[in-house]
């Protein structure tokens, strides 16, 4: 088996164990940060290996595919693992400033690392049942983080979150059992061959809908996104941020993976569904953002809206569209984590995330205002930041596909996104604070570096990628090409001769 694949996955697991054993000793949280840093190194090594080799695979316990469990990284997986490690490290540093000793004592850093492990596992597995297992790890660890230190509001959000996600899990499992019954295999590369060779194409399409619904729900696609805005604004900022960046993106990843690798047999049926879902997700998401009065809820709905852009890329399905969607994914993960972290700082300054109780941050804490403006303008799609190039690629893809309606929709939603962000900017940062609610910069002082350093780093990433986007564009184009022609993927798993 390949150590390149195992290390990014095992590092957070071992870090979790160490962090749990050392909790309360004062160094547990720094062990978690060190573990995350190490994880980032391993993710970089994996990425390097994937770029050199194309596809990296490994068989767990050395049982050959399709009998054992396959771990596999192509460019798409490699990119996702790298992003997970990157934002994981940023949030781990932030959490050192935000999480108090009580939460650490309860095991915050351990569960946080296991969440990262679950996300990484989902990106690296080449086995559909194993993907289900990582989804469970994700679900239970995210539930743990949601209820930790639970206020009543938090528990309420967490219950909705877990109930709706369990439904998604059950549908996934149903689909999995049925698909195994129909094909006799769980290995994703092997499934591609089995589906291609199946004489029951209608049944495959029916079964694919189980996965579409299960993953779309994880991804927070309309009309399955209710759990997201119900819960993301309730926990601590570090938790919100990592959820915002990664959780729904795992669902998107699973959709991309399964609907390019396995269920690409019936685009005539799936494509219109994806188009409609993309359009409605974009629109309802941004309308939800405009209707909110709580800064963190605005941002939660913006996640939903951005998922629509990603699904649009899958719906169009051309190399350019998938490349644009993957670029958008990279952009969105960085920027969403960043926005939630800044929102956490603003909430800390103002003592509330309800915008009517916030204000005056631009005047009292100009650095925080600047650190908000960078991801805000990035998400708004202003050039030369990353959101702009993502938009250019997606609009280009929609234009090439002759899909004028979607072009118009993307542009209108982009405009509404600008508006929703600038409402936050105007109210929280520009407007004077409400009587007696002056931003308390003194509260920020002791943990200033922990909180602001990761925000600055993520902002810098958005700026640098935006200024020099060529490398990433080339990379996502190659990743999209791999997705659309999975022969190398299948050969790497099954050795070319199944």
């Amino acid at each position, binding site marked *: 088996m390949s150590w390149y694949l195992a290390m990014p996955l095992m590092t957070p697991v071992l870090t979790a164990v160490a962090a749990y054993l050392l909790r309360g000793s004062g160094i547990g949280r720094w062990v978690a940060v060190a573990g995350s840093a190490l994880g980032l190194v391993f993710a970089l090594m994996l990425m390097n290996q994937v770029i050199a080799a194309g596809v990296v695979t490994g068989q767990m316990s050395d049982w050959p595919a399709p009998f054992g469990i396959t771990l596999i990284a192509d460019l798409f997986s490699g990119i996702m693992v790298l992003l997970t490690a990157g934002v994981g490290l940023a949030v781990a540093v932030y959490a050192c400033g935000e999480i108090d000793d009580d939460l650490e004592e309860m095991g915050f850093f351990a569960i946080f690392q296991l969440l990262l492990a679950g996300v990484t596992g989902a990106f690296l597995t080449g086995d559909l049942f194993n993907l289900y297992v990582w989804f*469970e790890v994700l679900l239970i660890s995210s539930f743990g983080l949601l209820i*930790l230190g*639970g206020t009543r509001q938090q528990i309420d959000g967490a219950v909705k979150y877990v109930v709706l996600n369990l439904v998604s899990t059950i549908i996934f499992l149903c689909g999995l059992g*049925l698909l195994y*019954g129909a094909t006799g295999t769980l290995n994703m590369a092997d499934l591609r061959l089995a589906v291609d060779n199946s004489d029951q194409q209608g049944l495959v399409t029916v079964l694919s809908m189980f996965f*579409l619904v299960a993953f779309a729900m994880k991804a927070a696609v309309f009309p399955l996104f209710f759990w997201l805005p119900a819960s993301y604004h309730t926990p601590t900022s570090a938790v919100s941020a990592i959820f915002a960046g990664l959780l729904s993106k795992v669902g998107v990843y699973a959709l991309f993976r399964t609907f390019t690798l396995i269920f690409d047999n019936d685009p005539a049926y799936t494509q219109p569904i994806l188009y409609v879902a993309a359009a409605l997700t974009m629109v309802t998401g941004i309308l939800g953002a405009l209707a909110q009065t709580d800064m963190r809820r605005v941002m939660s709905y913006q996640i939903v809206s951005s998922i629509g852009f990603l699904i649009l890329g899958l719906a169009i399905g051309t190399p350019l569209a998938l490349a644009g969607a993957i670029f958008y994914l990279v952009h969105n993960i960085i920027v969403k984590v960043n926005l939630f972290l800044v929102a956490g700082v603003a909430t800390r300054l103002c003592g509330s995330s309800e915008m009517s109780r916030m204000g005056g941050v631009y005047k009292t804490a100009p650095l925080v205002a600047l650190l908000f403006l960078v991801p805000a303008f990035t998400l708004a799609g202003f050039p030369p930041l990353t959101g702009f190039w993502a938009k250019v690629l997606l609009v280009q893809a929609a234009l090439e596909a002759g899909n004028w309606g979607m072009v118009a929709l993307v542009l209108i939603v982009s405009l509404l996104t*600008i508006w929703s962000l600038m409402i936050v900017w105007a109210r929280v940062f520009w407007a004077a604070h409400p009587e007696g609610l002056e931003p308390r910069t003194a509260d920020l002082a002791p943990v200033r570096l922990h909180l602001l350093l990761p925000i600055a780093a993520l902002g810098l990433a958005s700026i640098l990628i935006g200024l020099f986007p060529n490398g990433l564009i080339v990379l996502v184009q190659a990743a999209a090409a791999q997705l659309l022609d999975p022969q190398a993927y299948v050969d790497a798993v099954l050795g070319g001769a199944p």
Partner: protein
Amino acid sequence: MADHSEHPASFWTAASLLPPLIAAALFAVFTTFLPAVAAGETLRYAWGWIPALGVDFSFVIDGLSLTFSLLISGIGIAVMLFSGRYLAGHPQHGRFSLYLVSFMLAMLGLVLADNLLVLFVFWELTTITSFLLIGFSHGSEVSRRAALQALLVTGAGGLAMLAGFLLIGAETGTFELSALREMGDVLRDSPLYIPILILVLCGAFTKSAQFPFHFWLPNAMAAPTPVSAFLHSATMVKGGVYLLARMHPNLAGTNTWLWTLVIFGAFTTVFASIVALRQNDLKQTLAYTTLMALGALVLFLAAPGGYAVTAAATFLVVHSLYKAALFLTIGCVDHATGTRDARRLGGLARRMPLTALAGGLAALSMAGMVPFIGFIGKELLYKGGLESPASPIIVTGAIFAASALMFAVAGVVALRPFWGSDGKMPLLDRPIREAPLPMLAGPLVLGVLGLYFGLSPHGLQVHVTDPIVGAILGDPDMAKELYLWAGFNLALILSILTFATGVAIYVFQDRIRERIVAAESRLMNFDALWDRLLAAIGTGARVVTDLLQPGIASRYLMAVFTTITLLIGSAILIRGLDIGTVGLSGVDGVHVVVFGLTIAGTLLAVVTNSRIAAITGLGVTGTGVALVFIMFGAPDVAITQILVEMLIVVLFSVAALKLPTLPQRLPFFHRRAHAAVSIALGAIVAGVVIAVTSVPLDLRLTEFFEANSYPEAHGRNIVNVILVDFRAFDTFGEISVVAIAAISAYALLRQRKTKGSQ
């Protein structure tokens, strides 16, 4: 803007001095290109940037971009000197200078870019910096609203324009403007010409505030005066005009282009000059005269004639010079007197003679008086109008009306405040003094330049108008000469008539103003319409969101299950499902009992009102499933199932004792809907299961496990071997799940305990 003269010494700071120095350095650099451009050269500089998208970081210096660059950096010197003194001591002066310099650089990038996407990058950067500058007085709701309005209006246009640019790229295969110049016919003959034109014009018209997108510009006057002078008159709003000039070789030359620009330009110019006369706030007056100028420039970029383009080029320079000077003059007046109200100002020439001189010079050029460059500009406008291929009467008529009104407005702006009666002047606790030198230097120089270029227009023609015409029309020989005295012709007659009409309007201005005010109240107010639009979107957003996200978990579940049912159901309907032959041949009595038990348990759980009964019903169902496992040869799975069922029933029953009774049952309609979805979904899943089981099972995996369990993995119990060896990795994941659940549960319990003890 508040007065900060209590900190006179703080002019000597980096925030005050660096910006004008940067602008001056840039201006000096640009002047070195003048000889080459006058000689007809075009210089291009390019670096590879994003080869994957075919985007070079490329810039071009020709007549058009050099003139704009000189205007931007030159007026930048004046404005930044002014603002260094005007804002000295302001607590956010540093930020202001940063934004202003950033804006200037973005604007220079915009006009110098040779690649459409590079141009767009800078275009949006001017939008962002302009947003921050308009909202500079961020404590005021008016400023914030104006900033957001400008951002959204120009942002919307920008997005449309981006789509237009991407279409151009798709049609021609390039984003390089210098390559596109040669491909005008490709675009004009493309079936996408009209969409491209509309999208690009959306960008240009919003940026240059053409009617009906004009309303954001007067509101943008909420910015500090130097910002208004720089962005909203001399430079940024000309970005749209620049774009029209730059795209002229690619998109102009059709009737669509001609008439669109004529209609929008003519209407904007006349409309704006009428409304300008009506304003009392001198800054607002100047804002509307800016609209007038922008309309005129659009109007003259419509036609490809030599006079029209020469007129546009000349008027561009004329307007930038006098408008920046007037704005800064008004800024000086405001600074000294604390008001900009035309009705109250008067007699300032005695106390502020140099300010009066600067304002007077600029106003004379604005009024088009001999021998100022404004006169030459106006003559050219008339000549261009008379040769317009659209309709000489419309174009010339529009320019006549606008020029006459401008003449009167020039009087309002410069005559009354300085030489009018000072009877209504506000009483101040300090004497009204001449503006300080850094604030005066700019407007004085700009005003004098208007006179100098009028007396000696040849230099301007060689270095500016000829190269611009060359850049736009591709042939500098089409440029017309700039003369102060062009002989006795129709244009001169029109000029004389203009003066006469202008004087009349000035004399009767109060009566005309009343008429305009009366008419205005009956017309559509775009600014109020904007508010209504935003409010409507906001309301719509709330309605949709409340409908979708009422916060009730059962509704969410219903939506989710309905979606599943519809998606899988429609797949079955459209793609069909081969369920083979379903027979009841293998069914015996035991089966009937077990399945009957399972169904009965489910029904009990559904209909009961008691939690205990419901969990019992589910327990029965689970036991039934366990029996099924036994019947079909999986006793180990059955044992697990029974253990789990027992645990769940016991744990849940204990919990249920502490829970409140079930809430009231849902209304009948909801229950029926729930039942319908449940039954449909159940039937669908059953159908799919039957279809799947009718496919012969591929036993490769089972056979492999059977064959290798003992010899290779050394275990006799295949299930165990699968769990701990073949698929040990899954088990590893599941162990993590249990561990996390344990940690979380422990945390939750401890948390409740500590809370309870508090």
